[in-house]
């Protein structure tokens, strides 16, 4: 295949056979409970230097509790997938977790400005869809997938994509390298203890991320019986054998919205924006993360049952979210 142009940036090594071998050796096919605390899950499955993907974001059914745990445990040198993200990229960068970043979209601010200018974080350029397509390729066991966007942009030049002559039509087509992250963090509405997980509502790439990643941590609003999973199998978004850890995390998307469960906490949302707009993430972490053993302790100390109950009451929509 003739290569017409190619991006010059570093990208996570493409190795579908290596990934198959990992799956063969590490993905447990038995129905074994993987229920554990957020602390244990992050301690066991998120390592310094990992490539990390999280689905959705800090405000929209994202794994906010798990992201706070990553900051609490001071992970370092993480290569982050910044697709359809929000302030979470800034929070992780500002907390010193991240050294490389694949950009689809993140919320900008002083934290990112300063980190990029000082060279503390290296940014590689993609788009949201190109990133989810890379995950799709990774989730299919393929080395790449073609896409009819992204060519011609300056992002292409700073990516791992290639423009080739399509052997079928003879026309130029962009190829995006597959992405198989080391670890995925995904927040869902319901899961059983084995990791059969249900996402209700839209999402970004939860299925692709779960299947493409070597290690998968699910946090769930509710742990449900497997009998309930078997009653309505069509609602299983992610099957157990892709999953390594299941964390029971009520309000695990706080301060965000979790469809069918609770509305977003506007003061909490604004405070997170402020942290990266003014580059004061350490102060944010000192308030919400580092002093506490886990999120439950933080909710008890800072947010309080009354405020959480109001967020539950504010979520009046149930259609599509409850089985």
């Amino acid at each position, binding site marked *: 295949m003739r290569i017409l142009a190619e991006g010059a940036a570093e990208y996570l090594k493409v190795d579908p056979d290596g990934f198959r071998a990992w799956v063969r050796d590490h993905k447990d096919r038995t129905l074994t409970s993987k229920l554990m605390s957020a602390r244990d899950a992050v301690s066991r499955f998120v390592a310094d230097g990992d490539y990390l993907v999280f689905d959705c974001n800090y405000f929209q059914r994202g794994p906010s509790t798990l992201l706070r745990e990553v900051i609490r445990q001071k992970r370092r040198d993480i290569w982050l997938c910044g697709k359809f993200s929000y302030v979470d990229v800034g929070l992780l960068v500002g907390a010193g977790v991240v050294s490389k970043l694949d950009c689809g979209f993140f919320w900008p601010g002083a934290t990112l*400005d300063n980190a990029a200018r000082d060279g503390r974080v290296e940014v590689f*350029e993609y788009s949201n869809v190109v990133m989810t397509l890379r995950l799709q390729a990774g989730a299919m066991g393929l080395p790449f997938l073609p896409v*009819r966007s992204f060519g011609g942009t300056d992002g292409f030049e700073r990516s791992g994509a290639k423009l080739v002559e399509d052997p079928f039509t003879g026309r130029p087509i962009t190829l995006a390298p597959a992405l198989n992250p080391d670890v995925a963090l995904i927040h869902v509405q319901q899961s059983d203890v084995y990791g059969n997980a249900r996402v209700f*509502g*839209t999402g970004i790439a939860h299925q692709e991320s779960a299947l493409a990643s070597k290690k998968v941590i699910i946090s769930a609003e509710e742990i449900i019986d497997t009998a309930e999973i078997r009653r309505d199998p069509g609602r299983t978004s992610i099957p157990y054998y892709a999953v390594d850890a299941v964390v029971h995390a009520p309000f695990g998307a706080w301060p965000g919205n979790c*469809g069918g469960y609770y509305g*977003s906490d506007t003061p909490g949302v604004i405070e997170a924006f402020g942290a990266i707009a003014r580059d004061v993430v350490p102060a944010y972490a000192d308030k919400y993360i580092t002093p506490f053993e886990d999120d439950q302790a933080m909710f008890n100390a800072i947010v309080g049952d009354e405020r959480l109950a109001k967020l539950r009451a504010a979520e009046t929509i149930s*259609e599509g979210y409850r089985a």
Partner: protein
Amino acid sequence: MTIDLGLRPGTGARAASFNEREAQICTVARMVEDGKTYWVAGGGSPMYAVLMAIRLYAPGAQYITEDGVIAPEPMLPFEPVMTMVSSRAGYRALAWGTMNTAGNHAQLGLMDYGILNTLQVDQYGNINSTRTGKGEAARRFGGPGGADSIAALCWRTVLMTDQEKRKFVERVDFISSPGFLDGSEGARERAGLPSGTGPFRVVTPCAMYDYTESRRLRLVAIAPWVTAEQVLAECEFTPVVADQLGTLDGPTEDELNLLRTELDPRGQNTAERSAWIIYDGEKYERAAG
């Protein structure tokens, strides 16, 4: 020759006072075609424009967002920033998918129009949302998000941006999402993008542009509260100017009532910095200060 702007007249009486952001949203709403599909950027003016159009002008227009929400009837207003993957934004949709759903459907040719807002646009309709400046003046922005796919794959792309010299530049500092690239014929196809797609209009709070046959921005209409000279002074380059400039009508009371009481009652989008315009029944004027 007068260019057909593709704008329907607004319903209701002309409003006596409004800001330019509101005017921009109303202009785009009047462009929306009934029975067509729109992939709108999540949040901000593009979404309000299409919501206004569906309510007032084009009840059969449908929109999707990049989280794979297809044709919702959202519960308004949105909570701050909760315009995607939120239960209110996806309420009563016809289907729910994911980002690859949106990307694939656009790649198939199902999206007639994309509507985007952006930081910076150039004479060939290229879009920058990644970074500006160099050295100490460098500023990092959030990246293309879904805009690259919208600009590459929808049949026609409508861009909303401000009429400011630093935003209307000869060449964007970074092509995040494709316009006509270097402006040469076939540039998009050579880059692997589907043929027959690309930039269609740019709408600012006080002007509208289309593209010439040689793919350069062309000023085709201005608001009655500005002169062509004022608009051109807010472009870093000199765009082509149509022989006969059209006039963009100001917002109507119906449009503003909808926008201010139902779509964006908290002023999250429209209360941002923009000039106020007064209409005294005969002429429009920018308010002092």
